Structures are given as C-alpha cells and as structure tokens.
C-alpha cells in the first residue's frame, strides 16, 4: 500500500516535472499564439471605391489556407481574420482595435492603403503590436527608430528613384534632368529620392521640375515647360492618367528625352495602351516581381505553381493582375518570418525575426531579387531591375540594382 502510494507519488511528481519541462519546450507565446494556432489580423477594402484591391486579402487568405492544409507552421494553424474597412480610416481603426483587443491577434499583416495604415500606425506602435508588410509604398513607413513595430513590404518610391539616379550617373553622366511629379507626398518621394540618389550632382543635373495636381485636366503645359528647359532626360512620377498624358505629349511635340517612368504608372493596360503603344517605345521603368502576363515566365515551374494555387483558390479571373503576385509573395514572407520564430511566438520575437531577414528568395520575384532587413532597415525589398518598353511589352535589361 505504502509502496504503491510512494510509487504513485513519485510517478506523478515525475510527470509534473516532465510536463513543466515540456511546457517550457513548447515555447513562449504572445497574445494570439498557442500550441495549435497563430491569429493574424488584416484589413482590406472588399467593398467601396477601392474594392479592386480586395483581391489582396483573398490571396492572403487562400495562401494561409493552403499552408494550413499542408500542416501549418511548426504544427500551428494560421487563423487569418480579414475584415472589410472599405478604405475608410475610422473603420480601419475600429476593426484593428477589435482584432487587437477582442480577437487578440498576434499581429496585423498586409493591411492595405496609405490612409488606413496611417490611422492605425500610432495605435499599433503604442501598444507594441507588429504591423507587418503593409501594402503601401510611401517612404515614411521605413522608420524603425520612431515606429519600431511597423514594417513595409513593397519597394519604396524613394528606392525606385535611387535606381534611376544610379543608372543616370553611370550611363548619362552629362544628363540634364527634368522631373514631372504629382504635388503630394507620393510625387515628392520620387523627387527627393532622385535628388538623394544623385548626391552632390543633383543641383547641377536637375535642370527643371514641374508638378501637377490630381485635379488638373492635363499636364501638357508642364511637359512643354520641361522641354523648354533644355532637359534631355525626363523622370515622370505620375499616376496612370497623367503618365499616359505625359507620354503622348512628349511624343506629339517631337521631344526625344531618355524617359524614365515610375512603376505606379507603367501598366501596359492602363497607361501604355491609352497613350498609344508606339509612343511609349524605349521608355525605361523598373520591376521587382514576375509579371504574370509576360510570356518569358509562363513556362517556369514557379509560374505554374502560382497559377495552380490561383486556380485552386478560385481566383483564376485575377491571374493577369500583378497585385495577386505581390500578395502571394507577401504571404510567403509572413510564413517565412513565422517559421523563423520557432516556438517563441511573442510579438517581440516576431519583430526581431522580421527584422533579420537575410537574402530571402521568393519564387515570384525576379531572379536575383531577395529580401533583407535589419534593425535599422525596415524596407525588405530594395532591389529592382530596369526594363524597357519595346512597343508591346516591358523587356528587362541590365542587372538587378539596389536602391539604397
């Protein structure tokens, strides 16, 4: 009896010690993480005027569902909570607070748009909740000193402008540069990025700048003024409507500058075709992801995997939309970070791992482009490759360049 009791006590004590040891091994958890689950929050406009961006949330959700089917991340399933904010900042604040305070998500991932992200920026940083891989490109997001909980994903506008500056310094050292930019933070990011990239030569090389307001009917007078300044290089930092106008006007007045066009306005469908395909020949832009409509990728296994994923997710209709490539790759970045966290799923460790990406390769990014971050660098994608428009499609040329 006594022996039995002692054995029982001994066994249970051993069991207790074992379970404590196991619990330690099983890891540390912040809110929203457990042995079986990782909760992730997201806001995207599924409705309203910006609902064409809603596909980002659908791709993210489908990708995490696929990861869950394959067994999850280190045995944990992702519980992805994606809500519709209609691109309305007050709604974003409300939903994000709900996800953080009620649903207790571990982090906010890939929330979309500059104004919605601005609205939750302060709240998430005050409460030390990771705001990871947001879907917006403004330079201001890369600010780990003041906002150590916010990380971007898309290459910043400034990084892209740096790449044009490098190219100009190397290949067109005597260039006289004219800049057409939208008169807001987005346009100024390009102008400042170019100045920054040219360094002390900026003052001499940039001979003229012209801005437009989104309410302007055309940019014709700006283009004429830029030509009149004697510039032989033109950088156009404009959204699709004005980019198309600029291309057409440059051609129509017989001006033949080396024309650099920002990625914001380089879509074949919404810019190059309306401007007139032949008028856009030889324009230079940049890319970092594989354009799904470009035939050169369509025979690769990476493309085939992606198409199979899109079809399985019921998103076949969106396979010409490059946004879905971005969302697919952003979700892969998130999975890579969570895998690197191992069993330490605290918010601090998630940020630490997100800030120590080292040459991460993703299948749908251009060959040679990798993601890297550091404690002072919260801009994962800085590399891009130049491309030239051949009258039908964009053709990549040169090497992968870094925008820092």
């Amino acid at each position, binding site marked *: 009896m006594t022996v039995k009791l002692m054995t029982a006590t001994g066994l249970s004590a051993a069991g207790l010690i074992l379970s404590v040891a196991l619990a330690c091994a099983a890891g540390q958890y912040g809110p929203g993480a457990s042995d079986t689950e990782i909760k992730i929050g997201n806001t995207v406009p599924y409705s309203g005027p910006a609902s064409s961006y809603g596909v980002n949330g659908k791709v993210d959700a489908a990708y995490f569902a696929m990861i869950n089917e394959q067994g999850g991340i280190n045995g944990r399933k992702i519980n992805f909570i994606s809500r519709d904010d209609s691109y309305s*900042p007050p709604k974003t604040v*409300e939903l994000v607070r709900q996800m953080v*305070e009620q649903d207790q998500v571990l982090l906010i991932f890939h929330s979309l748009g500059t*104004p*919605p992200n601005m*609205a939750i920026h*302060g709240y998430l940083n005050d409460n030390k909740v990771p705001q990871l891989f947001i879907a917006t490109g403004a330079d201001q997001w890369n600010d780990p000193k003041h906002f150590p909980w916010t990380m971007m994903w898309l290459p910043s506008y400034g990084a892209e402008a740096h790449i044009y500056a490098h190219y100009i310094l190397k290949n067109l050292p005597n260039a006289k540069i004219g800049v057409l930019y939208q008169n807001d933070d987005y346009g100024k990011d390009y102008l400042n990025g170019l100045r920054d990239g040219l360094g002390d030569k900026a003052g001499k090389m940039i001979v003229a700048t012209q801005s437009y307001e*989104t*309410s302007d009917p055309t940019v014709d007078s700006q283009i004429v003024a830029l030509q009149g300044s004697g510039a032989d290089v033109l950088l156009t930092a404009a959204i699709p409507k004005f980019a198309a106008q600029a291309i057409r006007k440059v051609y129509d007045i017989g001006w033949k500058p080396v024309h650099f066009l920002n990625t914001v306005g380089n879509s074949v469908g919404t810019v190059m075709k309306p401007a007139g395909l032949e008028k856009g020949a030889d324009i230079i832009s940049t890319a970092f992801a594989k354009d799904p409509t470009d035939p050169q990728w369509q025979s690769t296994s990476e493309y085939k995997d992606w198409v199979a994923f899109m079809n399985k997710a019921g998103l076949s209709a969106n396979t010409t939309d490059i946004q879905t490539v971005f969302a697919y790759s952003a979700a892969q970045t998130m999975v890579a970070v969570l895998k690197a966290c191992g069993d330490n799923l605290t918010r601090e460790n998630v940020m630490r791992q997100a800030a120590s990406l080292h040459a991460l390769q993703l299948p749908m990014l251009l060959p040679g482009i990798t993601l890297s971050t550091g404690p002072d660098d919260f801009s994962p994608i800085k590399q891009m490759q130049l491309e030239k428009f051949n009258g039908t499609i964009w053709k990549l040329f040169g090497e992968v360049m870094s925008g820092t």
Partner: protein
Amino acid sequence: MIVRKDFAYVFPEKLAVGSVGFASAVRRWIGPLVLIVIAAALPFAISNYHVFELTLVMIYAIAVLGLNILTGYNGQISLGHGGFFAAGAYTAAILLHRYGVPYWATVPPAALICFALGVLFGLPALRFEGPYLALVTLAMAVATPQLLKYFDNWTGGQQGINLPKVQPPPGLGIDRDRWLYLVVLVVLLVAMRVAANLLNGRTGRAFVAIRDHPIAAAAMGINTARYKTLAFGTSTMFTGIAGALSAIVISFVAPESFTLFLSLSFLVGSAVGGIATIGGAIVGGLFIVFVPNFANDISDAAPWAIYGLAMLLFMYVMPRGVVGSLGPWLARLTPKNQLTAPKSDDEHRGRLL
C-alpha cells in the same frame, strides 16, 4: 379634455410645474437621471474596445441628431451631411495640428464654422425642394473628398493629418478611452437638451409647420426663409460638432473618411432611429456602428446585402423608425415621456403656434 391633452403635448414643462409641482418634477427627472448615471458608469464595466465603440456610437448619434433637426423636423432632405461632418473634423484637426489648440477648445470653433457653412448652404437651398435639394446636397457629398485633396496645403491632401493623442487629465486615474467617452457623453447630453429646448419651443413648432405645409406656415406669419436657413445652420452645427469629436477620438483625418457613404449612413441612421425624434439619434448611431460589423460576421461575401436586408426589416416593422414607432407606445406607459416630437397628424395641424 382633448385640448388639455394637446396642451400637455406641446408644453409639457408648463403643465408639469404648474399643475403638480415638485414631486412630479422629481418623478419626471428620475428616469433620465438614472439613464445618465448608467451611461456614465457603463465604461467602467466594459473593455476598452467596447468603450471606444460606444464613443463612436455617441458621435454618430450627435451627427444624426443634426440631420433629424433638418430632415425630420424641417422636412429638408440632405444627402450631404458627411461634408459638414468633414468640415468639423478638419477644423478640429487643423487647429490641433497647426496651432496647437487644446482638443476641447477645437469643438466650439468647429461648431461655429459649421453653423456658418450651413447657413450659407441653406440660402441657395431655399430655392430647392424635396428631391432637388437632395441632389444639390448629394453633389456636395460627392465633392467633399476631392475638395479635401485639392486644398492639400491645409488638409494634408491624400495623406491626411495625424493628430496628437488626447491625454486624460492627470490625477483622475482614468485612461484615454474612458475619458473621451465621458467627454463625448457630456456633449451628447448637452446637444440633446439643446435640441429638445429648441424643438419643443416656438422655433421647433415653426420648423414643423414649414415641413407640414409651407404655404399655411407663411400665411400664419412664419418667416419661412429665415427658419429654413436656421434649421440648416443648427443641423450642420450639430453634425460639425460630431465631426470635430470624431477627429479627436480617431486622432486621424483623411479624405477617405468622408465619402458619400458617410452621408448616406447618416440618413439611414436617422430613418432607422426615427427621423423626427431626438432619442432616435442614439438608435441611429447604434445602427451605423454595429450593423455593418454584424453583417460582416454573418457573410463575408455579401455584407452589404445583409445590411440592406436589416434596413428593409427595420423600415417594414417600424416605418417611423425605432423611437418614432415605439415612442408613442412608451409614452402611453409613462405619460410624461418627452422622447417624441409633435406629430404631424391632422389633429395637431394648425394648432402648433
């Protein structure tokens, strides 16, 4: 007897004080007082997120109250109140951000500016009736986000303005969310009281008379132009105050916050709550905040279909809005309830002044 009942309806306070005295006054105030105490104690019983949500409800309630004055009592339909909400929000934001004005001091200027804007807008609106006025105000709602982007020197354009976070007064020992809840609650109560005084008095009767029969009202000597403009100004003033509070609570403004949908939400909230009521504004605020979330919980794919269905259901079951329909029923239980406005029944018509 009928005359006396009618008298009680229009001048309940005079009746109460004159006929029964102190005991009755206590009885009349005890209900609202209990409600106010509950409302003030509520944030200390629930989580921060729910406190924040209810703060938004009260802000939208103030905005809807403004619209009720104009549309419900004066019969002028506005689809553009989101624009005045934006004007209030940006007034507060610019004062806070540019001039470092303390947050509580930004509300009165926002109220003044929105009152002035409303009067200015009300002048041309005099020439438009019914659906035409709705169209004019619709134009304003559509233009608001673009105007805000155009004047980007002041408004921060597309990027909006980030505002400093409000700090609760030290020593009180309550956090930011609960402090703002109480501030907004006080503003809401004052707004409701002011609205009740205005609408239960001479001005309110003039508003209603103009709504019900403008020619008869004019024949009775009501200056319809003056009262219609006044209704517009008062209405936009309330909505502008709500806008200023929303900027303070959200601590961010951007053009995307003030789209056409916001204006439509106000009208929906107003109709669901009870368009010619004061208490209905609170129901409207609840509807604006909770129903879209509720719809999203039910269906990810078609939340706005659910929203529409909820709207239809409310309108079908309670065509005069929640408070407009339940109010008279409640009033029968508690004779001195003041929730509902003078009705526009034929019985009352012509006796309002």
